[in-house]
């Protein structure tokens, strides 16, 4: 069997003495959209931060095209073609909207995404391009955060709670834009608390509960009761 694009093999993660992930196994095939759901504190964000190289305590457990990448720094992981849309958006407040996007592409990886493509996807950002990023609404900031990740022309994009704290109408807009983003061979791991949204855009789903994988299955066919059980642990 060929190597998966991304594989987590018994990934453990710690913050000091606190263990946040226990032996998480997960695999992502090229072109797939994988959803990771779970309650607050289940370890979803920790998992993405580990993959992105922001938490480094598992050199061999994270494999990219068969190679262990867990020991790499975040900038080295980014250079491989893995981009993170972080929870809370975390734009650069000193940079304008356009500068936030440009810096996302500063590694110069080749691919379909450019400033123009991002503006085509989110036209409002073109109007606001010279504003400070902090002056935008939450939804627009999320668009910048997604655009910033796409500008690096990644092979894999990790999206952490992109609907968190946004109005339902904005969430719908962003999710309507997703198929246009992941359509062209881009692979995505989407972390969500909104189970329905996560299932609607993904092919496969994992559920995390207290740092362990409690469920793995096809998004369209997993019975709802099983998800409820895996999510809440009841």
């Amino acid at each position, binding site marked *: 069997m060929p190597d998966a694009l991304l594989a987590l093999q018994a990934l453990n993660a710690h913050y000091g003495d606190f263990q946040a992930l226990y032996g998480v196994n997960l695999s992502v095939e090229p072109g797939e959209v994988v959803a990771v759901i779970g309650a607050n504190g289940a370890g979803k964000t920790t998992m993405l931060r580990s993959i992105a*190289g922001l938490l480094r305590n598992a050199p061999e457990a994270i494999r990219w095209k068969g190679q262990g990448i867990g020991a790499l720094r975040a*900038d080295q992981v980014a250079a491989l073609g893995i981009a993170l849309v972080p929870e809370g958006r975390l734009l650069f407040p*000193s940079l304008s909207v356009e500068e936030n996007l440009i*810096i996302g592409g500063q590694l110069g990886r080749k691919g379909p995404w450019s400033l123009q493509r991002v503006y085509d996807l989110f036209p409002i950002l073109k109007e606001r391009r010279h504003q400070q990023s902090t002056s935008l609404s939450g939804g627009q900031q999320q668009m910048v955060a997604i655009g910033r990740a796409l500008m690096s022309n990644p092979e894999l994009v990790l999206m952490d709670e992109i609907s968190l704290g946004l109005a339902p109408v904005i969430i719908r807009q962003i999710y309507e834009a997703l198929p246009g983003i992941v359509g062209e061979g881009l692979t995505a791991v989407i972390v969500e608390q909104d189970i329905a949204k996560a299932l609607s855009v993904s092919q496969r789903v994992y559920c995390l509960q207290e740092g362990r994988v409690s469920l793995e299955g096809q998004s369209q066919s997993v019975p709802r009761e099983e998800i409820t059980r895996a999510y809440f642990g009841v």
Partner: protein
Amino acid sequence: MDWLNAIIQGTLLGGLYALFAAGLSLIFGVMRLVNIAHGDLIVLSAYIALSFGVSLGLNPLVALLLVVPSMALIGYALQRLILNRTMGEDLLPPLLVTFGLSVILQNVLLMGYSADPQNLQAGAIETASVNLGPVAVGVMPVLVFVTAVVVIAALQWMFYRTALGRAFRATSDRQDVAQLMGLNRAHIFGLAMALSLAVTALAGVFLGIRTAFDPAAGGARLIFGFEAVIIGGLGNLWGTLAGGVILGVAQTLGAKIDPGYQILAGHIVFLIILALRPRGLFPRIDG
């Protein structure tokens, strides 16, 4: 007329103080590092120029072509090999390490060059002056002031118009997210320190041409630099120039009243401004 003369001389002196301050301001802005060794690095630059003068017979202004890149290299190496290991949430470890560095630098200079005051000889330009109506100003102070304006304009342009400046600002905003963009923080910090010490090289050579210096001369320069940065408002480069000028004018006016008041007058003005405007006169407006 004497008073006008004092204000003009003070303004020009402010250019030198702005050069002391610009490097300090730059690294604080990019990485929140308070470099206690900054004054000693200024003095080190003067000694490096002195050595190039002695060994190669170079005029110190020509020697700048060698001193500036030397200090930039020293800055990059210092940051990558030592200071980066101390950087984190806590501001204290780098502060202590630069304090230690300050002590080491002073003692190394003392061993290498003795405690005798030294001077950089720049030749006729040192005493040349031009008449501006009623007052005569020295060519050298004007050159220093113009250099300070050019350096600050260039830094400003670099910060807001170039990819490097964007990387500096992004890293300053959020270090770990900048890392996600593929920016290696250790390298970015190294570049910031290199740039800071390149400016420091200019400051050191101008200082050495203006006055005698010895291995212990750094402390006062650090204080003047700090005062200029804080008067102008942290993170505002043009404010740093204004801060340097205010400090310089305060000192020359103080000296006009009584030569013993020169340094004191600068400190008093600094304290008054700090009391009235704790964030400086021109704080950076940010969210």
